[in-house]
């Protein structure tokens, strides 16, 4: 090959790199290792993280993932394909996305879904940007966000939108619900949208109907953030209030994606048909080929960075395609009946958990009704409890004190369908024993 190129050695191929910049070796990189050795290494690393039983939710949920999901999603033809630019050679990926879009639209009760964004937090940020761009009636770069929206989503959205001069304004909460009374104070100002999470980050159910109608009356858009699993039983954003939310978004992880230290997951984004041209990300459409046969292709590409460059709706390019493939398979296996059962079982398990833990002296269950997460209030800081029970390999929940100091010593707990009665009982017993053997500080 070198002689065909006309060079003596491969070093010569790098001769356009100025000599001063060339290096002859990489420092601080270990020598390569064989598959057997790396397998041994990674298994020993993985083993260090094993053996815990988790009652943490707070944005990532441990559900059963049918074996077929990843067996199929990791088939080489899905796993090692690129974004489907050559439609004729990518009908598999394209049809999967089309099916995914259909499922998400049906679940949320809205019209159009994109092909995914990075995760729930960035999907929320993109929803905010989209609302500002597409709400032509209100000319505002301000957005109202309920304090019951996932705190890290709010942080991320602020980060991703502030460069464009967008401001997120918080609406306070009370009893785990967006405070309707607080809205009056906002009556004078103009906002492009209001953002509501249902179930809220605290697991509670908000009065989304009233809030949606209030917002629409003021020409605001309504952005719904939903755990998609909850949509198996809860009213979909498309049916909130009289007219339905305008945009729905959130974290797709509960649909067949492992919790896996936080990613890769995928953000979903769905909206009303009218504003689709402001949607970020890929969208797949069905059309026909020159023989009139149906087929799928990326559509509305004029929104995207590779065509529109600095005027694109977003800079997103690579998204979370494989995760969406997994989610589509997951949803096909479960169907709405399966999702409903899971949602109900998660709710029931969390109820039992909250009740059991609530029986402990010094522990109170704070808000009801809740979906599959509950807030517990403690008579002491939860940090030490997390540590103590962690030593028994029980991950007790998410410490709310930094995000919601107004709730006191509060812990957000979650028992999905994966948690057994025995595990719940063990948690309660361990808590009881730790609480009773230590003093309130």
């Amino acid at each position, binding site marked *: 090959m070198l002689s065909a190129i006309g060079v003596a050695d491969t070093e010569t191929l790098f001769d356009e790199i100025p000599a001063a910049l060339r290096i002859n070796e990489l420092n601080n990189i270990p020598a390569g290792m064989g598959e057997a050795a790396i397998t041994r290494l990674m298994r020993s690393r993985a083993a260090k993280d094993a053996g815990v039983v988790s009652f943490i939710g707070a944005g990532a949920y441990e559900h059963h993932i049918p074996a077929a999901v990843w067996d199929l999603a990791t088939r080489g033809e899905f796993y090692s394909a690129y974004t489907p630019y050559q439609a004729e050679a990518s009908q598999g990926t394209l049809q999967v996305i089309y099916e995914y879009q259909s499922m998400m639209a049906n679940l949320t009760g809205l019209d159009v879904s994109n092909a995914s964004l990075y995760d729930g937090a960035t999907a929320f940020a993109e929803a905010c940007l989209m609302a500002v761009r597409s709400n032509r009636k209100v000319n505002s770069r301000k957005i109202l966000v309920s304090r019951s929206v996932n705190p890290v989503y709010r942080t991320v959205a602020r980060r991703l939108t502030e460069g464009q001069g967008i401001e997120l304004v918080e609406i306070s909460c009370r009893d785990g619900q967006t405070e309707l009374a607080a809205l009056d104070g906002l009556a004078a100002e103009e906002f492009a949208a209001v953002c509501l999470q249902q179930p809220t980050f605290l697991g509670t159910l908000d009065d989304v109907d009233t809030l949606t109608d209030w917002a629409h009356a003021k020409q605001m858009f309504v952005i719904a953030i939903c755990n998609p699993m909850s949509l198996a039983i809860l009213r979909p954003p498309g049916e909130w209030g009289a007219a339905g939310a305008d945009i729905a978004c959130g974290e797709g992880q509960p649909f067949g994606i492992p919790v896996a230290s936080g990613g890769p997951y995928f953000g979903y984004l769905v909206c009303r048909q009218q504003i689709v041209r402001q949607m970020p990300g890929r969208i797949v459409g069905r059309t026909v080929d020159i023989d009139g046969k149906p087929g799928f292709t990326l559509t509305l590409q004029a929104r995207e960075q590779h065509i529109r460059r600095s005027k*694109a709706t977003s800079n997103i390019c690579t998204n979370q395609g494989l995760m969406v493939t997994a989610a589509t398979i997951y949803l096909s296996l479960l169907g709405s009946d399966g999702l409903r059962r899971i949602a109900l079982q998660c709710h029931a398990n969390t109820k039992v958990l909250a009740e059991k833990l609530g029986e402990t002296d010094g522990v109170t269950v704070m808000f009801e009704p809740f979906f599959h997460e509950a807030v517990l209030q403690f008579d002491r800081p939860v940090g030490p409890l997390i540590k103590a029970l962690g030593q028994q390999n029980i991950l007790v929940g998410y410490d709310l004190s930094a995000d919601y100091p107004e709730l006191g010593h509060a812990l957000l707990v979650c028992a999905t369908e994966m948690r057994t009665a025995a595990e719940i009982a063990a948690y309660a017993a361990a808590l009881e024993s730790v609480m009773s053997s230590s003093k309130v500080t």
Partner: protein
Amino acid sequence: MPEPIIFELSAPGRRAGGHAPASPPAADFPAQYLRHDEPLLPEVSELQVVRHFTRLSQLNYSIDTHFYPLGSCTMKYNPRVCNRLAMLPEFIERHPLAATEHGQGFLECMYELQDMLKAVTGMTAISLTPMAGAQGEFAGVAMIRAYHDARGESDRREIIVPDASHGTNPATATMCGCTAVEIPTGPDGDVDLDALRRVVGPATAGIMLTNPSTLGVFERQITEIADIVHKAGGLLYYDGANLNAILGRALPADMGFDVIHLNLHKTFSTPHGGGGPGSGVVGVNERLAPFLPVPIVGRDGEQYVWLTEADRPQSIGRLSAFMGNAGILLRAYVYMRLLGADGMRRVSEFATLNANYLMKRLQMAGFEVTFAERRASHEFIVSLQSITKETGISAMDFAKALLDRGFHAPTTYFPLLVPECLLIEPTETETRQELDAFVAALVEIRDLAYKSPDTIQAAPISMPVRRLDDVRAVRQLDVVWQPDNDPTE
């Protein structure tokens, strides 16, 4: 036989058993919260699901089935073991909010990954959190802004990009509230230095460069460029989507770059997944280190810990709900450990060898290579302009005819400044036989372009569908399946 839409396989009440709890208690909340109708989802058996998605998968071209020389995308082999090990049950079951005590194994990998990424870029600090190249760019430009803001130079809002730059570069500038300023490319593929000198000034926040550029050539005047931009008070951003071109041959930090993102899903071989997920880790020099997005993995004695806003008050903050695409980072970690220092140099060796070989073979076969006098990096451009003029056969026609011959098409019509171009990236994992076969296919297509252009315009004929009506796809938007919507009507 087209594969039906999964909804069309549905029958009421059918289901794949065993995946959901058998008899959960009913919901006990007020009716106002409950949905009235079940959402329309497919009702199918597990066999139907397996068969449907297996068949769909077979409709794809992919690295695992076909040569896929998609320029700028680095479609190289993903070692299977990377996926296997990233999917170890303990890794995939670890909750992101589990205390670090319950994640030392994972965090150790991440810490070492940060170190290895420092080594391959020459940067002094790394954040793993960006979830794709474009988010890496966002992080980079946001850090540049934060840097200028911190120095009281908030008016620096212009991001310079070459006209050949990837679309995400100008789009990112906009997302960060900056203005993208395009500068032209000189005739030999390097940046036009005079043009650069003309645009830099007090409004300059920085410049974003891909090096080797998306034209497939190494920017030889990089040191001058760095001087010009730095002197003007701007910073240099390295779009390192395709580091395979120079891995172990040169360090972006030495070239004068202040910040870099790497597409781990290209250079470090993690799945492209039909459109992701990826990872766009960022590296910075001392100047920008305080601004890195969090979380970052740190070390406290024997323990690995998360460094957050509390530890890094000037950080641009969080870009995702947790720590980014952890699983992709694990895959990249495994890949880097497999290869080691020598293996990484072999990556650039073979990526460059394959590209130059393929470029030369095509040139010898009479194709017009855009920068024929230059070395190819990991990719290069062929312009079909003269063939198009003489035959009417466009780059798109060539692309479709390649599909019929068992090759995925190269990137077409990018970079935008070269007419009728193919951006060809063979990658380091292909064999000479494959490259030779690809040349033969292109030659055959060109011959047919002259002899019977109809046959090429009719391509593809062997794919699941023929050319699709993209205009209709936009005009009659059909993006959600409806029971009564037949697209052939």
